[in-house]
């Protein structure tokens, strides 16, 4: 695993998230559920807790967008870049953006929202790309069954280096 330069991380364990826009590929409830489960991937192994907010500011702002969408890192249409997220910090820090030109899915082998979101939230929490094939933070997308997903050891070590282990 790798962290970002300067090892940015949240200095608190209670983080808020807000979903500001949705894809039309999935019912909103399924998007909400995929996002919640993707955050749980990380909160299951650390002391981090996530609370959803519906108005005002949030640490992690989540949205779907196409092409240029206001952050200077335009998406590129169907394929190639699927999503991106920013390292922990004020303002845009922690935010996660998903390319709405992709075909998003919750269960089948189109681009699986849960798997991509879990990866992006790794960035939102301070993990950079891993060169370990099979790690969640490996930059290339590959499908696996979300129902049987388990956080690989490389990612667990990385996130626990930043936030410690979950306390019982």
């Amino acid at each position, binding site marked *: 695993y*790798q962290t*970002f*330069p300067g090892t940015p991380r949240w200095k608190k364990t209670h983080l808020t998230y807000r979903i500001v826009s949705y894809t039309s590929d999935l019912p909103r409830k399924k998007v909400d559920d995929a996002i919640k489960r993707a955050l749980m991937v990380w909160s299951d192994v650390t002391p981090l807790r996530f609370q959803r907010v519906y108005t005002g500011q949030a640490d992690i702002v989540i949205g779907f967008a196409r092409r240029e969408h206001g952050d200077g*890192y335009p*998406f590129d249409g169907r*394929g*190639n*870049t*699927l*999503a*991106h*997220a920013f390292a922990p910090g004020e303002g845009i820090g922690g935010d996660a953006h998903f*390319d709405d030109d*992709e075909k998003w899915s919750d269960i089948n082998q189109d*681009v699986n929202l849960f798997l*991509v979101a879990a*990866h*992006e939230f790794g*960035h939102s929490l301070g993990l*950079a*790309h891993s*060169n370990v*094939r099979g790690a969640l933070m490996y*930059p*290339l*997308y590959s499908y696996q069954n979300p129902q049987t997903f388990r956080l690989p050891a490389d990612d667990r070590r990385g996130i626990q280096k930043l936030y410690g282990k979950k306390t019982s």
Partner: protein
Amino acid sequence: FPVQLRPEPGTGRDLQKIKAYLDKFFPIFTKTQNLSIEERIKEMQRFFHLTITGKLDTETEKIMTLPRCGLPDVAE
């Protein structure tokens, strides 16, 4: 008939394609300003555990077409 040779990276569209990919995912930092395109391809091949050739071979080209996260693979 002679086999049509694949153009080496360093010419035309192939060069533009690999440069765009490297600029986005393996950007040049101040310390690495003088890296040749071959060295930059090698860096990418090392990251993805490919055979280190420094050339835009089939294996490397395939990686460039795969869906992926938009963040760089190396950080300053």
